[in-house]
């Protein structure tokens, strides 16, 4: 099963309410995915030349301050950070490669959930409502957000196996469905240099898109290619630094509904998750067509 939801703001005046608008959407999909939940939020960008990492440690009392201090002295780079439950967001004035290598070498027990200029990923095992509470989702600000409530099928119920998955800069993906060719594809992508953290099929889809984008594809081209190379059932919602995309496989067994107003574009597995959005009564509501790519992108970068 699984539930997926996404909200992309067209009206920037609503950015301060992104978390508050999104929280009921995520919680509405509890029936479809009660075992874990997560979301990727975009906003609070760091400048070019800097990098933002979302880091996680199993111990809520982990000494993030010590790690930050070490980063500052060893990398000789400015570091800002804040903690949210078991997760910390680090903003470092250095490149992604240097920052990630530092974390892996200095604190191998720390998991990197995302890297980019805009993205932050927060996910845990448990009921969506509890996870939204844990991270104080309703107070969060940003330009777009995608989320997932999981009912595990292809791999174990763990924090690592919960969505969203990010395998490239500012890119993340949530998936409802199951892929049948993920093992072979994972091996092929590993040879191309894509790194995977789990045995999860959805992570392979994220890795595939990262690889295509590295090859120079636009988001649209990468998604077009995925229709050819991914075998299985899927409804995807994808977030990038500036954009938001939705794609269903050609058979389109997995549900999806979309709504658009002058203020936002919203996507959900079921209409139930859209009912709390402002102006939904007069929104344009439609079911995305099979094998059809829907993309919204900001042109500010």
């Amino acid at each position, binding site marked *: 099963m699984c539930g997926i939801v996404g909200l992309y703001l067209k009206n920037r005046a609503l950015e301060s309410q992104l978390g508050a608008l999104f929280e009921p959407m995520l919680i509405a999909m509890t029936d479809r995915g009660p075992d874990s939940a997560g979301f990727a939020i975009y906003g609070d960008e760091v400048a070019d030349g800097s990098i933002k990492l979302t880091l996680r440690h199993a111990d809520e009392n982990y000494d993030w301050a010590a790690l930050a201090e070490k980063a500052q002295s060893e990398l000789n780079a400015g570091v800002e950070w804040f903690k949210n439950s078991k997760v910390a967001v680090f903003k470092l004035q250095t490149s992604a490669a240097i920052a990630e290598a530092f974390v892996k070498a200095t604190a191998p027990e720390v998991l990197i959930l995302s890297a980019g200029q805009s993205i932050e990923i927060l996910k845990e095992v448990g009921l969506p409502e509890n996870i939204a509470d844990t991270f104080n989702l309703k107070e969060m600000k940003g330009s777009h957000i995608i989320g997932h409530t999981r009912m595990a099928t292809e791999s174990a119920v763990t924090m690592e196996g919960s969505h969203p998955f990010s395998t490239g800069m500012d890119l993340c993906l949530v998936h409802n469905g199951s892929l049948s060719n993920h093992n072979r594809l994972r091996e092929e992508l590993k040879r191309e240099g894509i790194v995977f953290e789990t045995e999860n099929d959805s992570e392979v889809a994220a890795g595939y898109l990262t690889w295509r984008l590295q090859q120079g594809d636009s988001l649209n081209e990468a998604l077009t290619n995925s229709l050819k190379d991914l075998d299985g059932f899927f409804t995807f919602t994808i977030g990038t630094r500036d954009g938001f995309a939705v794609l269903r496989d050609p*058979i*389109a*067994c997995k*549900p999806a*509904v979309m709504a658009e107003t002058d203020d936002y574009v919203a996507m959900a597995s*079921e*209409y*139930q998750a*859209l*009912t709390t959005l402002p102006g939904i009564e007069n929104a344009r*509501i*439609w*079911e995305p*067509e*099979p094998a059809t790519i829907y993309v919204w992108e900001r042109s500010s970068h």
Partner: protein
Amino acid sequence: MKTINLTEQSVRDLNQALHDQAIECTEREWEVLEPKGQHNIACGLDQNISVDIKGPTGYYCAGMNKKAHVTIHGNAGQGVAENMMSGTVRVKGDASQAAGATAHGGLLVIEGNAAARCGISMKGVDIVVKGNVGHMSCFMGQAGALVVCGDAGDALGDSLYETHIYVKGEVKSLGADCIQKEMREEHIEELTELLNRAGVDEDPTAFKRYGSARQLYNFKVDNTSAY
């Protein structure tokens, strides 16, 4: 008229109240407010009552319907009127996939578009869609009629038995064993009646008829090598 607001009462309360009407009918007209996309609204009805649902519904709305007349003033989720036996279900908006799946009788009218697999394995229901239908519509359709005033998606009528299909617009592709057939006088009559019952103003002579080539009814020994 009895009004039930689904933000105040549960779907289970609503359905129980509607099921009670099967034993003794005390109220013919029902109105359901604020459905908010909930699943299983007005399922399993078995009485000549009318139910107006004022907003979008979730999965299986009016499933297993018998005798009742259900109108959805909004979009319907998956499997609207699935396994309907008799009565009428009308969707004022669009319907998601598998509308009227396996339904045995009655009339399903969709005033907007229907998504994939509309009328899958239909067994006697009549379905009239004012807009388009998605891919694999009428898959394994056994009896009844599917009328599409717009276009049909890929693989229309795949593995079809005896459902009559009428399409006014374009058919993207026909499924296995589904062919275009001659529109004879009796078919014009059947289609005229279906359009009248659905309250849809279309010219029956503008439609094309599709049906089963009847080549998949029995296993053919010549096909053994295909397995």
